[in-house]
């Protein structure tokens, strides 16, 4: 067995990989939250439910409509994004001017309803979703065995996060978006349709959660409460990273996944709490978060 300084490398790299995979999901979800928060100043409590919806949509698409994984990877985020757009237009828009705490409570209520509905229809035990044929098997590396699907998760989500970061930070569309978060009225005066932009941004942020859901379906069991517990971790990650930056959301998400993986290897008892502990430490040292700007 490969060991280094008394450390079992197989185990260590295995946990690191698991950490990176979890981190990929954290990054996708906190990125979606950050985008929505940036433009609407809303914490979308339903983000976890949208992730769950994405996983279920992939499962239903396969089992009821025969839509395979690859097609689902495109169709499901669009569909979930459409649900988000409806949600924004019908429910969030009317209270957008109220205290933001109301929108938090509203999205929390939506999350409860969605989770309750899926529990009622599908029961609370999880359902399996097969790994697509092309990604079955894996690679034998000198220090570990790398399943192909897991490698794909990490690569694909880093890619999606990277492209999103590039779009927001480097393109004209992104510049409008960032300007809209600074001063929506001024942007409106320049002839930018801000309400439309808000709606589409919300749809995109929610679509990211749907995308994460499809990616997650083959590795975790598809179950109604898969989103709710993840969401609280993502909230902690958002606090750690600070809401100010898109890149911060991505890096903190991935980083915290790795931290969690390492903890699972060295001190498993703390693995479910380590992210919250990191949050406490960051709050003590830097209340605005690692990448956040002081208000």
């Amino acid at each position, binding site marked *: 067995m490969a060991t280094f300084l008394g450390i079992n490398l197989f185990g260590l790299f295995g946990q690191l990989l698991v950490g990176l995979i979890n981190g990929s999901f954290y990054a996708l979800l906190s990125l979606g939250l950050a985008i929505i928060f940036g433009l609407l100043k809303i914490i979308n409590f339903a983000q976890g439910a949208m992730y769950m919806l994405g996983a279920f949509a992939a499962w239903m698409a396969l089992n009821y409509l025969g839509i395979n994984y690859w097609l689902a990877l495109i169709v499901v985020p669009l569909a979930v994004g459409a649900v988000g757009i409806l949600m924004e237009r019908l429910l969030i828009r009317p209270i957008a001017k109220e205290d*933001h705490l109301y929108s938090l*409570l509203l999205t929390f*209520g939506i999350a409860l309803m969605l989770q309750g509905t899926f529990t009622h229809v599908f029961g609370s035990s999880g359902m399996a979703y097969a790994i697509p044929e092309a990604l079955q098997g894996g690679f034998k590396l000198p220090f570990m065995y790398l399943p192909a699907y897991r490698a794909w998760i990490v690569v694909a989500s880093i890619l999606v996060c990277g492209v999103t970061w590039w779009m927001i930070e480097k393109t004209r569309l992104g510049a409008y978006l960032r300007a809209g978060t600074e001063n929506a009225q001024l942007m409106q005066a320049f002839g930018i349709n801000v309400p439309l932009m808000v709606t589409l941004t919300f749809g995109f942020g929610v679509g990211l959660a749907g995308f994460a859901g499809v990616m997650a379906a083959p590795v975790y069991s598809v179950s109604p409460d898969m989103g709710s517990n993840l969401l609280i971790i993502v909230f902690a990650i958002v606090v750690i990273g600070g809401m100010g930056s898109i890149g911060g959301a991505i890096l903190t998400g991935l980083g915290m996944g790795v931290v969690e993986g390492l903890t699972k290897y060295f001190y498993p008892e703390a693995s479910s709490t380590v992210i919250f502990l990191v949050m*406490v430490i960051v709050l003590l040292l830097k209340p605005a978060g690692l990448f956040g700007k002081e208000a």
Partner: protein
Amino acid sequence: MNTSIFTHSKLNLVLLLLALVAPFVLYPVFLMKVLCFALFACAFNLLLGFAGLLSFGHAVFLGTGGYVTGYLMINTGITPELGILAGTVAAGLIGALYGKLAVRREGIYFAMVTLALAQLAFFFYLQAPFTGGEDGLQGVPRGHLFGVIDLSDNLQMYFFVLAIFLFGFWLIQRTVHSPFGQVLKAIRENEPRAISLGYNVNDYKWVAFIISAALAGLAGSTKTLVFQLASLTDVHWHMSGEVVLMTLVGGMGTLFGPLVGAAAIVTIQNYLSGGELGNYIHIIMGAIFVICVLAFRNGIVGQFRKVLKQNF
């Protein structure tokens, strides 16, 4: 404060009389459940309604009070009032720790920090050796109050719970109407101005957080004695959501709102869990949330007060 009609001593007297007669008409255990949750919601509302702080992790204080009281009642021979006191103090201490951290962030962040901290505690209680894990602490004895009054009798227990509730409610009322409470309201309305007036805003928030946490712990301790059970349900974040819902339904920022909201939600839950609709409980709770936020933001008491104001 435009609470003239609600703080009216006559109304208080009528409510008190109702509370004294109620256990002879309705099932005392149900009433005790309402009172415990009402105290919990009132404690929560002290933060949200009067300081503008939405804590999304208040279940941790309810649960902590419950676990500490439950553990002491099972493993030591102390009397119930001391057990409850210990639970309350424990919740207050956790509140002091969590509050110190949480008040460093505002608004939505505050909600997220409290939620994440509560989840930290949830995992702790899940793994800790003294909480009974998934099973919780069962068969907690109610004991003899002051070593004399037998609390295993539901009626005597009810009056004990009522006394605790009235004490908590009185304390909250005193806090809200004190100079301290006025500063809290000033912070809620305009924080920068309160800062510029020289108030150390974070300290005020912190003290309010500790009071609220301790009273939530008091509610949890009492609840554990009533049901003779302390379990993970009380620490789960669903419970934190539930107390928000109770306050929202009743009317946040009003003294009686949380009481009315708690009564409404506990009644709905009791009614649903018995019948065929039990499976829909989360959907219905979620729907109530959405409806309240969209159309009914003042809650029952707020709405009632508005109607009174317009017509009388």
